[in-house]
């Protein structure tokens, strides 16, 4: 079966774009459900991220604050994160 190479190329780039879109989806984890004003603050602060299709998850183990994930990048603004950093610092001072 012959496939038009142009078609193949188009399909490939379309799929790649799709994957990229999926990868660059913003995921926000918070200790509690975020209100709309809180979401607004976040989108203002990180204006370069695409907030239209953001996912919001609730994970109480982070205690407070938020963790923002885009692809393999992570921005850790949670209390749990700072605590674990602190415990590392304590370990190093020792």
């Amino acid at each position: 079966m012959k496939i038009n190479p142009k078609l193949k190329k188009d399909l490939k780039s379309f799929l790649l774009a799709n994957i990229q879109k999926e990868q660059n989806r913003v995921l926000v984890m918070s200790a509690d459900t975020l209100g709309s004003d809180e979401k607004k603050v976040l989108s203002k602060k990180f204006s370069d991220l695409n907030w239209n299709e953001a996912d919001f998850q609730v994970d109480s183990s982070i205690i407070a604050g938020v963790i923002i994930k885009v692809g393999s990048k992570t921005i850790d603004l949670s209390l749990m994160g700072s605590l674990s950093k602190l415990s590392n610092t304590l370990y190093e001072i020792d």
Partner: protein
Amino acid sequence: MKLIDEYIKTLEKELKNKPKISTEETGIVSQVKDGVVILEGLDRVAYGELIEFKKNVLGYVIDLTEDEVGAIILGDYTSIAAGDVARALGYTLSVPVSEGLLGRVVDSLGLPLDGKAAIKSKTLYPVEKIAAGVVKRQPVNVPLQTGIKSIDALIPIGRGQRELIIGDRGTGKTTIAIDTILNQKGEDVVCIYCAIGQKNSKVAAIVELLKKNGADKYSIVVSASAADSVAMQYLAPYTASAIGEFFMDKGQDVLVVYDDLTKHAWSYRQMSLILRRPAGREAYPGDVFYLHSRLLERACRIDKKYGGGSITALPIIETLDGDLSAYIPTNVISITDGQISLETDLFNSGIRPAINVGLSVSRVGGNAQTKAMKAVAGKLKLDLAQYRDLAAFSQFESELDEETKKFLNRGAKVTQILKQKKNRPLNLAEQVSILWAASNGYLDKLPIEEIEKFETKLLETLKLKGKKWLEKINKNKIMDERDGKDLEKMIKDIS
């Protein structure tokens, strides 16, 4: 109290910092294999970068495929589970280096293994480093005395050289390397013994031996034993090299023993197979040559303009049944500047060190040999070569002419005189005196059993009566006619 104040201050500083908004590269563990972890994510991680898992376990990225990252685990990998988060640290693997390393036993990450205090250091040296280039180098021309007669006379090693020690198991490879370390006492050479995949009991024995002989003051042992993960075994020689570079950059001469690179190649093979890299000959990956060439290329002698200093490498390779043409042995033979070949047959027939003089060479060491040694060694080499040629014929000893008998006799005596007990290195003057006696025919009339006795007697006499002579030779490294006459007198005294 001071300590607590400092502690609180640091903590306060840490707490005062406003949460910095910083992005981190993270990934999720998808597979845990023997010492190797496969991760998803970490899209922007670099080759050789360090990643951190929970509980401060570190990983070292050595495999980047289209959508996965492979990392070797530095330490205990059993605490890592699938689904764990790992974050990239943004820097490559380095080891802390300082003068405090002397006399210590450390692992592949530079952490102490001897139960003593942590090693204080302000400098970090990268474990993987491109070797010094052509411009910075200087040819090998200063000898590194091994203290072993047969090596210093026939296969001399220079500072900055890479000399392979190759042989079957139990032929005295490690002994040669350790004797060389013992002989560096007072020579201002920093010695690093790197054990790769060795038994812990063997390493303990070596540490003990170094201590007993006072060699621990200028030695460092880097050990990744057979019980450590392959990742640690893979890294150990590079760590040893990095520590060596620290001392070399200070203008010091360094001797590094890699014991042994066969096991290093095995550990790399295991890692590569787990990472599913294509296997080549003997199931080694394609870059097993580069594995050793980039390590041994780091041995060098730096030009004085660039600070001087040198790293001499003594890699060890274990062969099976004396097979020098196996894959790893041929590779390392071609990388190094010569080899010392040890043989089981010689070892069993009592010739120790069991060096096969015919198969051993030193490609650059000749320029580094001292004049005193050159004067006696030249004749010695000729005697031995002639002996080897004739020895085969002497099997059918029916009618040999006088000349042949003389050569055979001389050869046998020279072979005897090259024997040496282990852990008893000799200094230059001592070596020169014995070899001079042999090559000038003073042993020809002695029966073979008496030769060892003669040697001890000569050394005793020299120590008692010829102290000045020894000092002079050791200092000037030249032996002129008058020295020869003085020595002749002393030899005549004892016989």
